[in-house]
């Protein structure tokens, strides 16, 4: 049994205009020490997925269905008290913007010690010692001094290091990192990412990395999910998806990378933009932007507009696309006839 | 998308209003509707006082001194000529409260118009011109606010009264109160306007206007000011309520309207002397009217703030 198992997760926001389905039918697993990437444009539901794992979505959001199982315990039905024992302890989080994440009026030491003391019966002195040790691990210069400093006295990169140290404080099983480097300077991004990867490997910590950066995902994670408009549209081993994406959307994403462009020519971009969650197109949510909606004979595939695609196996990957399903079917028929 | 099929007609003012979120949320908010209704009733009744009121309380000949301190209709021993009873001078309470509300509203609105004129002008100058002008006006506002507006009003009122003499002060009391409360409260507007000017100033349309070679006065009044209107609108409601309370406070201290020409505040003050003898209505009926008036304005202000949600100056 996997360490973390998410199945058919369904998250909604009860707004004045009606319910908005932020996440639908999201399923994945994470093994101990495994690193999983969740990729998608902003608004695809990545962050909502991350926050819903620990039941941290703010009202009016709520988990409407599905289950999240961690070591056999169902998190989504667990009491606040039970969840509190897991949050920060077994599963910790790294937020997007280090400038906003730390409390401006509490010292770094206080924010680290309180986390330790919430989960372990230890003295403040012991807690400080552990905090100091973790600060050393994240390679902060003069760590002793940092404990008594306040967030505003530190740079963004330094703060994110501290947040990584806090995430590691209680030797968790899983770290959920929500765009941990997006808000940082480009020069520091790689450094912080390498540090996080290194520490996760060292401590055998599972990592769920939420990002829109395909480069980072390909370097850090072993498996990945691609999300679009609240659904997972492709999943599988990272290397295979990057090298041979099946879903037209994933293909578009990878083609849009600057590295993929021919010098002197326009970047390849996916036309249009992601639909609003409150007003999704029928059938496959990607169909208005899809270049493969027409068959070879020039006919529009009606199924794309009428039916939400299910997953089809393509090698080690799964893609939710009618076109891929057709291709696979053709290939199977061809193989059978041979 | 529809552009090709038919030309877009600019919506009329009325249509724009009826489509707006303001009107939408007003239709759904019972409290706001009730408050507006109460407020309008009070304003109409107050300004129609000479038509509605059974007696003219300013006319000494209509006062029956023997009929003083009569209780309102629901208590025994009333004279049915006076629904709400009479005050210590034998004036019909219903009439005098109507006239008093009119005085309170006049001063409240007058003072707020003055505050807004001063505050908006100073705030625009401070925010737009910056530098010394800004430092000067904001320092002044700081000092005045740290001294509290009511305090400033009381001191100015006291000094003016001492300089000009009581009779002169009473004669021009309405004008004096408008001036005093107007001068005391301008910093609220100035700060709010300055804050939103600073927010607007760096936006592109202001740059564009400057690049086009418009004069700064024109940019200020034609381009920046309209964008600061919604916070001005919101604080105006609170300021009217405050001005009415300030007027009442000044009158209560004897620095406001004279008893011969009373506002709600001076009616409360006059009645307070009789509360120990059991004639509570002389003070509490004008008091209740004052509270209902201020409360309806405050609730409307609360609603407006929720709907418009402007970034107001804090602290």
């Amino acid at each position, binding site marked *: 049994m996997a360490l973390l198992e998410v199945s058919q997760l369904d998250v909604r926001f009860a707004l004045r205009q009606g319910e908005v389905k932020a996440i639908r039918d999201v399923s994945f697993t994470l093994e101990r020490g495994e690193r999983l990437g969740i990729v998608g444009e902003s608004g695809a539901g990545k962050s909502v997925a991350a926050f819903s794992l*620990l039941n*941290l979505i*703010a009202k009016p959001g709520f988990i409407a269905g599905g289950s999240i199982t961690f070591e056999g315990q169902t998190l989504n039905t667990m009491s*606040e008290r039970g*969840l*509190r*024992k*897991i*949050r*920060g*302890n077994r599963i910790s*989080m790294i*937020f997007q913007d280090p400038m906003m*994440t*730390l*409390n*401006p*009026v*509490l010292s770094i030491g206080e924010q680290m010690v*309180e*986390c330790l003391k*919430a989960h372990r019966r230890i003295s403040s002195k012991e807690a400080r010692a552990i905090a100091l040790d973790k600060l050393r691990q994240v390679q902060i210069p003069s760590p002793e001094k940092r404990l008594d400093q306040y967030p*505003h006295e530190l740079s963004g990169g330094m703060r994110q290091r501290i947040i990584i140290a*806090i995430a590691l404080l209680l030797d968790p099983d899983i770290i959920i990192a929500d765009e941990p480097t997006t808000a940082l300077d480009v020069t520091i991004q790689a450094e912080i990412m390498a540090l996080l990867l290194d520490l996760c490997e060292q401590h055998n910590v599972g990592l769920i990395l939420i990002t829109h950066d395909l480069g980072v995902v390909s370097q850090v994670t072993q498996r990945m999910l691609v999300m679009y408009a609240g659904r997972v549209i492709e999943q599988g081993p990272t290397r295979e998806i990057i090298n041979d994406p099946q879903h037209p959307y994933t293909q578009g994403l990878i083609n849009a990378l600057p590295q993929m462009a021919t010098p002197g020519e326009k970047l390849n971009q996916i036309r249009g933009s992601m639909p609003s969650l409150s007003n999704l197109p029928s059938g496959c949510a990607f169909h208005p932007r899809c270049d493969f909606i027409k068959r070879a004979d020039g006919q529009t595939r009606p199924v794309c507009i009428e039916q939400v695609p299910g997953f089809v196996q393509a090698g080690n990957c799964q893609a939710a696309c009618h076109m891929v399903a057709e291709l696979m079917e053709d290939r199977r028929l061809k193989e059978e006839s041979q | 998308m529809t552009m090709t099929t038919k030309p877009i007609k600019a919506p009329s003012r009325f249509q724009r209003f009826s489509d707006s979120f303001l009107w939408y949320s007003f239709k759904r908010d019972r409290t706001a509707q009730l408050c507006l209704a109460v407020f309008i009733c009070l304003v109409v009744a107050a300004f129609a006082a000479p038509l509605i009121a059974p007696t003219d309380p300013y006319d000494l000949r209509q006062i029956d001194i023997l009929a003083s301190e009569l209780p309102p209709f629901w208590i025994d021993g009333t004279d049915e000529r006076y629904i709400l009873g009479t005050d210590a001078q034998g004036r019909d309470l219903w009439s005098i409260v109507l006239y008093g509300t009119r005085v309170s509203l006049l001063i409240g609105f007058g003072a707020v118009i003055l505050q807004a004129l001063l505050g908006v002008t100073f705030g625009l100058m401070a925010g737009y011109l910056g530098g010394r002008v800004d430092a000067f006006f904001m*320092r002044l506002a700081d*000092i005045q*606010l*740290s*001294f*509290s*507006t*009511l*305090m400033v009003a009381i*001191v100015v009122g*006291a*000094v003016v*009264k*001492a*300089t000009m003499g009581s009779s002169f002060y009473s004669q021009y009391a309405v004008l004096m109160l408008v001036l005093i409360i107007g001068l005391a409260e301008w910093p609220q507007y100035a700060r709010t306007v300055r804050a939103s000017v600073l927010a607007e100033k760096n936006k592109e349309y202001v740059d564009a206007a400057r690049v086009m070679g418009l004069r700064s006065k024109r940019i200020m009044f034609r381009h920046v000011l309209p964008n600061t209107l919604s916070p001005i609108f919101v604080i105006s409601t609170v300021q009217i*309520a405050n001005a009415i309370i300030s007027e009442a*406070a000044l009158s*209560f*201290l*004897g*620095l406001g309207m004279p008893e011969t020409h009373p506002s709600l*505040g001076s009616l409360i003050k006059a009645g*307070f002397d009789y*509360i*120990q003898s059991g004639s*509570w209505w002389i003070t*509490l009926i004008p*008091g209740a009217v*004052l*509270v209902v008036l*201020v*409360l309806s304005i*405050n609730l409307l202000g*609360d609603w407006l703030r929720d709907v418009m949600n402007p970034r107001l100056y*804090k*602290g």
Partner: protein
Amino acid sequence: MIAFLIKRLMHAVLVMFVISVLAFAIQDNLGDPIQQMVGQSVPESEREALRERLGLNDSFMVQYVRFAKNAVQGDFGYSYFYREPALSVIARHLPATLELVFAATLIIVIFSVPIGVYSAIKPRSIISRFFMGVSIIGISIPVFLTAIVLIQIFAIGITVSIFPESTGWGAWLNGLFSTQGNMPSFGRGYDLVHVVGHWDTNLASWNGLKHLVLPAISLASIMLPLFIRLIRAEMMEVLQTEYVKYARAKGISMRRVYFVHALKNTMLPVITVGGVQIGTMVAYTILTETVFQWPGMGLMFLDAINRADIPLIVSYLMIVGVIFVVTNTIVDLIYGYVNPTVKLTGKPA
């Protein structure tokens, strides 16, 4: 920190300068000390000589400098009415006002924080809605009217007889809504305990405390709802921030999230507003003391206005100015203590 203090001090000096110029201008224009010192019968030539001797013919600047010098040394002139130094008149009235302000502040602090925090945490609960409703009514009632209503209910008493007295429940309801009205509503009472100097306290005897109750509630009545609403609004904003979300993600208890992470950030703007409101509170003491005939500075000031006792008016303004400056400085220091970002820059971030 030192830069911060120096900045504060400069501000204080500026404020005191402005106040003193205004105060002096009032004195210069309104008071004719000669008139007060000598009778009508003294001939003009003698008056002129006296005027010359007292330096009243000097230029405005020279006179102001003399006035400021004296003021710094604690000499604010003689009260016309009390015929003693204005400063000692004020010193006699100051403790009563300070005790009243202290009691009101206590009420405000004790009630505003828990109610404000609760209604921010549970904004939709019935209790929160109730408090919000009551607080907007509270803001809409002027202080002196609250005072009058309190006097009517608790000092004079009300007799309710709208329910039928003959039935048991009617009598019970009438009794429930009627009040006896035996609370004192006039002055400070007979049982003051002497502390030191001019300071007799209301706080050390039952009778004294009873006299303090109604004035203190009245004075608190307008600030309390203001602070409840302010704390609620700020707290609700803070609860939306990333760092509060992050604190929850760390698995610390909600109590700690609310009362350490959120409350500390909530209190920053509240402290700033509190500093400004102290000024308003002093203004309201004038109203409260007038209604309750509380023998403090406010009542003294109003009497001084009615008696045109210019030196006393001027001294009151100067002393109130000092009180504002001192309290504002203390408030800023507290702000700096709570907000770590202040220390480095000398400016709140």
